[in-house]
């Protein structure tokens, strides 16, 4: 345990350097950029000679909008996500695997393609509207959620994309709690709902917090789909994209830094709270006794009569927000294949757009190649860093710290990450790498490493690997040997899952890529371009193509983890 052999020391150092240079530096660079160029930033944002502090006002306006949107999204997610997480964690039923896949889908689905699919489904005649015989979409583009005042369509997209964070985090947390506590409660006379409130809820509160924070941060940082559906309104993350395109770099950087700081400010207390969970379990809340009798009567009633609703309502939400758009967009490709079904114009058909003058097919082919290269290279490099990094996290005293820091690239807005990478390696910074495929790869590594590490760590924590390693050591294996012969085979599943998850995510990533891509274009970014060029059928086709690809990858994950 105390001996360090040369190869392993080398590996540790190489990994840590890789971590800092490829993951941490890009993530936090924005902040240092703002510091270094404070003069420029201050002028552009606060004391602009032309518009005064208008940029600052814009920043605030956009931030508040984002906060309203994200908070309401999380609230909605909690209402439906908590019951669903409970059902998934505790019950067995046919089709459960399929449901789990459905929930994982938004994590790997290409955001731009998905955003587009949602847009078409609800706001256009090509979607549900046409299906119902209307001649517009079901929801007008400018429909707003009452009270909160955010566009309905943006809300729907955000709910769909953040739902998995709450459900999966909570599901894992619930599964980690021994069922005996709930059984004990039942034998003492409490119905399932009372049991949930009294016993399970206090014990999984950290999981709810964690899931909510992740979902909030994800919504705050959501770029790809929002770019497509936001219309005239602007969230913080797409503001970054717009300002970068307008060369208001200082403003964009300032916004980006703010978002990184907010992300970190959210994660830190949650991690600290989660770290405390083992030590203090005391019930954080208590109902006044006058209410209790009434509450329990209600719970008894709900336990008996409302179980069906609790089971199906979340699924209904899921179907509406995720499945329906996918079906619609796939269906549209078919109906728009040769010509626009409404006007009959051939120019409005998919085939024309792909193979006609615009020749999107060519662009698509090139983009696909780019996407795959990027995904393969970045995932491979990320895995090489993530594997030793996971062991470092588990065995070294500073491991917990690294793990917390790794959460930041996960929740930081992708556009902000992209901007950070651009500024760091591009012409304004070290000037090592120009916009283009290499920059895209570097960007993707930054958010892939955390994904793979988390996947490996959860498979490590689910088993007694430490015990097996110790056993191997006493049988005569060196630390290095033990890891090689015992630990690695046992975490194989986690590595594979992480790899595929990361690969799929990389394929569909839009926000960061859009900022750094320069001339090279990936498929999801292509969708954004198509939408802006109003080449709707082409966009339809490309979105469907991407979504199908991610679904295939998801099935592969399922297949490998089953074994």
């Amino acid at each position: 345990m105390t001996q360090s052999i040369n190869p392993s020391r080398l590996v540790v150092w190489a990994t840590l350097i890789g971590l800092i240079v490829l993951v941490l530096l890009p993530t936090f660079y924005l902040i240092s950029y703002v510091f270094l160029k404070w003069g420029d930033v201050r002028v552009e944002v606060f004391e602009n000679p032309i518009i005064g502090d208008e940029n600052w006002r814009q920043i605030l306006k956009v931030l508040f909008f984002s906060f309203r949107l994200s908070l309401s999204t999380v609230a909605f997610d909690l209402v439906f996500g908590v019951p669903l997480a409970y059902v998934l964690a505790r019950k067995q039923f046919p089709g459960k695997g399929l449901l789990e896949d459905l929930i994982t889908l938004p994590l790997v689905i290409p955001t731009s393609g998905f955003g587009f699919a949602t847009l078409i489904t609800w706001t256009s005649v090509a979607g549900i509207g046409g299906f119902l015989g209307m001649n517009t979409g079901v929801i007008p583009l400018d429909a707003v959620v009452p009270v909160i005042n955010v566009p309905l369509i943006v809300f729907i997209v955000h709910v769909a994309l953040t739902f998995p964070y709450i459900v999966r985090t909570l599901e894992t947390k619930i599964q980690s709690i021994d069922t005996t506590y709930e059984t004990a409660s039942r034998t003492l006379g409490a119905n399932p709902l009372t049991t949930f409130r009294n016993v399970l809820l206090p014990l999984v509160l950290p999981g709810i917090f964690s899931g909510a924070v992740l979902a909030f941060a994800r919504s705050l940082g959501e770029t790809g789909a929002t770019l497509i559906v936001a219309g005239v309104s602007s969230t913080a993350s797409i503001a970054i994209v717009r300002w970068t395109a307008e060369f208001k770099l200082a403003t964009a950087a300032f916004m980006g830094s703010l978002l990184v700081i907010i992300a970190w400010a959210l994660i830190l207390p949650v991690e600290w709270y989660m770290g405390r969970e083992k030590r203090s379990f005391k019930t954080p809340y208590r109902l006044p006794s006058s209410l209790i009798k009434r509450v329990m009567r209600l719970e008894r009633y709900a336990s008996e009569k409302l179980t069906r609703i609790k089971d199906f309502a979340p699924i209904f939400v899921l179907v509406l927000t995720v499945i329906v758009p996918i079906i619609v967009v796939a269906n549209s490709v078919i109906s728009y294949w040769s010509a626009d079904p409404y006007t009959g114009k051939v120019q409005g058909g998919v085939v024309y757009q792909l193979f006609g003058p615009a020749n999107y097919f060519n662009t698509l082919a090139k983009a696909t190649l780019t996407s795959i290269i990027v995904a393969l290279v970045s995932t491979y490099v990320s895995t090489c860093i993530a594997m030793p990094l996971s062991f470092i996290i588990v065995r070294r005293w500073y491991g917990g710290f690294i793990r917390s820091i790794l959460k930041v690239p996960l929740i930081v807005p992708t556009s902000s990450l992209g901007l950070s990478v651009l500024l760091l390696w591009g012409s304004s910074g070290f000037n090592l790498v120009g916009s283009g495929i290499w920059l895209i790869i570097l960007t993707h590594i930054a958010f892939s490493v955390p994904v793979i590490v988390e996947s490996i760590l959860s498979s490590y924590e689910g088993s007694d690997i430490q015990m097996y390693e110790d056993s191997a050591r006493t049988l005569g294996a060196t630390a290095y040997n033990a890891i090689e012969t015992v630990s690695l085979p046992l975490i194989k599943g986690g590595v594979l899952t992480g790899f595929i998850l990361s690969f799929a995510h990389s394929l569909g990533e839009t926000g960061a890529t859009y900022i750094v891509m320069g001339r090279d274009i990936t498929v999801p970014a292509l969708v954004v371009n198509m939408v802006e060029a109003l080449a709707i059928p082409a966009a339809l086709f490309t979105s469907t193509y991407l979504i199908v690809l991610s679904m295939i990858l998801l099935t592969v994950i399922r297949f490998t983890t089953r074994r």
Partner: protein
Amino acid sequence: MPEVKLVNVTKRYGKIVANDGVTLTIKDGEYVCVIGPSGCGKSTLIKNIAGIITPDEGEIYIDGRRVNELPIEERGIGYVFQNIALFPHLSVWGNVTYGPRVRGLSPEETRPLAIEMLEMIKVSERSDAYPNELSRGTQQKTAVARALTSRAELLLLDEPLGALDVKVRAALRSELKRLVKDLKLTALHVTHDQEEALSISDRVVVMKMGRIVEEGAPINLYTRPKKLFTANFVGEANFLPGEVVKASGKSILVELEEGVEIRAEASGQRMGDRVVTAFRPEFVNVETNGVNRLKGRVVDVLYSGSTVRIRVKLGNGSIVVAKQMLHSEAATIRGGDDITLSIPPQRILVYPYPEGGLEKELALE
């Protein structure tokens, strides 16, 4: 009126039949222990009664009422778990008052119940402590108190002492028995520890592979087990196979090997029957002028506090264990000595030779 009745209860998990047509009646006020090796189905049985799982076939009655479809919380039972399962986020007081609280009792009604229970198990001064501050033995006592505060009259215990040190187990055992008897409860207690079962229960039920092998009062299962498996599982025994060469009236003569015969009490055997004789180590006498002399050589002598276990290899290679008190003459015996053992005929049990083979029949897992 019988408190608990199981009729033909069957539960399957895929191809494994955990409970195979189990029929059992537990009388009001009885303390029944169900014992058996791991996987025999005892845990499944008790979970069926509690409602934690439902049987595929058969009926379960509690106090005359069929409860198959009744949810756990309505069966009026107290349940004690092997892993204790005290709610970690509630104090001792919070845990113990949980039952009455969720059953709708007001704090005023609950207080006296909880105080009385905590007094009975002698944990009153620790009522503000949280589970992780208590020793395991105290935790389990609290869990028992929690199960009983809701006035349940049927107590189900699933390996309640399994997670405790041997010494703690012995101490808690007697407290448990006292508590159940004082409160006049009916108890069903599942365990793999036969010593525990023998000391605590009115009746013991032995299970193997989903079925009940035998049931009876502890002393009967020990002195006169009706089945081979029981003889091996409840207490220890020596098993020597042989053939009946003479059967007359009250006694039979069994030939163990060429020239070695022992006499036992007759119980329906006939000439030529293949049998297995069984006798407890405690009843084997050393170097006396008794009947049923067996000659052999001492393999080793193991001490265990105040008892001595002498392992002897007989002429035909079988091993016989004799158990004696330390202060007997047995103390001077050494490994390698030649030795003669004798067993009183009335202490020898005779069973038909099992079809599947002796080792399989006696297998403890």
